[in-house]
């Protein structure tokens, strides 16, 4: 576990330069209109996007919903074992709150590529900088700011 964390920290540091640039663009750029502004501090986003605490139960639904978070497509979560078919693409989210701080998790949800540039994981709170987005999703984020906070509330309990 120690080695894993160290490795992740190194990767986070490497990604940070890019992450800061991208996030700054996100938060202030004209194309990112409609998004709640947020500030990246170190390798995380410490402030809630909505100023309100997330709701873990609503977060659970977003995580399961295949048209919203669809987190189980790639990640296994043991406490959601009653849901069928957990994917193997990303790491298991069991204990994820022990591996990352709330601020780090928030940034990974907002835009995982700010931390892991080569990841397959989509940016859940970003609405520009994409290529050939299907019309009905253009200019939109995958999740709302509140949904990001709700998912985060659920993940925070995974210790």
């Amino acid at each position, binding site marked *: 576990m120690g080695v894993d964390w160290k490795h992740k920290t190194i990767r986070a540091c490497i990604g940070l330069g890019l992450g800061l640039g991208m996030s700054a663009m996100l938060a202030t750029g004209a194309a990112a209109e409609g998004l709640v502004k947020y500030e990246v501090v170190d390798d995380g986003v410490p402030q809630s996007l909505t100023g309100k605490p997330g709701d873990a139960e609503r977060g659970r639904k977003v995580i399961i919903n295949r048209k919203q978070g669809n987190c189980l497509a790639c990640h296994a979560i043991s406490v959601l074992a009653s849901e069928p078919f957990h*994917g193997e693409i990303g790491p298991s989210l069991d204990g994820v709150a022990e591996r990352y701080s709330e601020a780090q998790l928030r940034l990974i949800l907002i835009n995982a590529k700010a931390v892991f540039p080569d990841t397959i994981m989509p940016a859940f709170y970003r609405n520009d900088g994409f290529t050939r*987005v299907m019309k009905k*999703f253009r200019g939109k984020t995958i999740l709302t700011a509140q949904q990001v906070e709700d998912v985060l509330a659920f993940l925070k309990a995974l210790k």
Partner: protein
Amino acid sequence: MGLRKMGPNKRNLAVGAVMALMTLGLGVAAQAQEMIRRIDNPPPGHPLPEIISGYEFRAPETQALQDDDFDNPGFLWVEQGEELWDEAEGKAGKSCADCHGDPAESMKTAGAEYPKWNEKLGKPINLEARINLCRTENMQAKPWKLESEQMLSMTSFVRTQARGVPVKVQIDGPMKPFFEKGKKLYYTRMGQLDMACANCHEDNYGKRIRSDMLSQGQINGFPTYRLKWQKVGSIHRRFKGCMKQVRAEPFKPGSDEFTALELYVAYRGTGLSVEAPAVRQ
């Protein structure tokens, strides 16, 4: 066309269909060919450490369905293609057979070599485009729509003639820029989910996304009978589906973009046996 409406089980009972298959000379003899489905030492410069047919990623039941020519529902289209081969159409009053004769001979390798360079158009064309050129120019007939029963039947039939033949597409000379274009598309993240072909099919093959195991996205089995589609479909239809899944605006089937991508993906499967009509989930 009544054949198409019959379920595979009914079809098995139809003695006529069995006879037709036997006269086709497909079936047992072709199936006995050794199929190359895994290459452990790809040539230098190849992007994959191993080249694996989509067959290897599927459940045993799905594999069994493909392996038996009488159970394989893709053969409904192959059989229709065989009928169309001999049908004269268009103002020239010609059939495929009039120019190409015995398909077992004339089409022995074509299915392994497309997309191929077309001098007149100055670009590579895929098998569908080649068939439509034959129709419009040589037969003076109307082109077939890309996902029409006729086109799927003819491509299934032609590709099945090359079953067992290792895929080998030209990528040098005039093909080079189109190959590079296809390669660029393969590695370009697209759509709201911001994923490139490579994110799934190079970085994560062999892993499950929900209940589905990701393959290398090889196309040596196309046209493929997909259980999800309940019919045979083209490579470009599959590309389109992938793009929609990542919430991207798909390119048009038959477009230069998809043809370039087809060329590049075919190259990634160099050496795999053509195994049309494959059965996939």
